[in-house]
């Protein structure tokens, strides 16, 4: 396994961890909120709402804008 594979594996592991958390949140009684509820709560103040929207805008800028 080379560095490239290891790096990609790391991304996949993190993605998998997110999926597992979401499944735990929606399929079990574990005290884990679904991602949607976390985002809804995070968007309930102006600072966090604008911050999250800026992060979203940055993703678009990063991939498409000069």
């Amino acid at each position, binding site marked *: 396994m080379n560095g*490239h594979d290891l790096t990609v594996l790391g991304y996949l592991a993190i993605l998998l961890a997110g999926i597992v958390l979401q499944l735990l949140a929606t399929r079990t009684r574990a005290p884990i909120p679904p991602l949607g509820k976390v985002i809804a*709560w995070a968007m309930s103040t102006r*600072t966090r709402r604008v911050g999250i929207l800026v992060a979203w805008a940055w993703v678009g*800028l990063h991939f*498409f*804008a000069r």
Partner: protein
Amino acid sequence: MMARPRRSRTGGPSSRDQPTTGREPGDEGAGTGPAGVPAGGVRAAPRHLVSALAGLREPIVVILLIIGFMSWISGKPLDGLLILLVGVSLAWDAGRRSRPARPAEAASGAPPAPVADGPPAPARWRRPALLTAGLAGGVLYAVVVGSFSRYSWPATVAVAGLGAVVVAIGWRGPRHTRPAPPRPPAAGLALWGAVFVAGCLWELWSLLEQPNLATSSYAHPTISTLTDPVLSTWAGRSVVLAGWLGLGWFLVER
């Protein structure tokens, strides 16, 4: 001294940042109050600086400043500048609103009190129509902007323009009146936070392992590098743009 009424600042969390200028509670909204301009124009600058520094207690502000800085030094000065600008504005705004009472914050940042659900009858048919128009507009946007080359000026204007509009909408407040959601359990928040931070750190590690910040590495690809093949085609760009739009729509509707 002891006679200072505790609610003279409408219950603000601290009085340490209240200089002995004899300002009244109405001064809190510097630049945004009815008067618009603080009474002491010369004293306003340090007060704004204090507000901005107080706003750094918000983690999202710190994250934005870090993103802006990293974007700047990795060859994306426009991204960096815009994000730094918003980060500083948010820091100032958060610091300003952390001083007055909670009700003031609720008025500007938190969702207002819930109102009766159900739009009036004439508006019922408008929602599906607006949804359809929005979807059609989104598809058109994704197809048209996806046809532009990456990092071209047309793509930059289209993405930056839409991003600015969405951020402005978010700044104004939630689009829907609904009860403030309860704070999720701390353990659950910590777990989601750990996943998010792990993703950021993994991306940062890959970025720092590149030959330099502007040159990608096959051995340590960033997400940008991994998505380059997809984004090199019109269809790929359009699909990714559609996903980006959908995520933005989801966020704005929260």
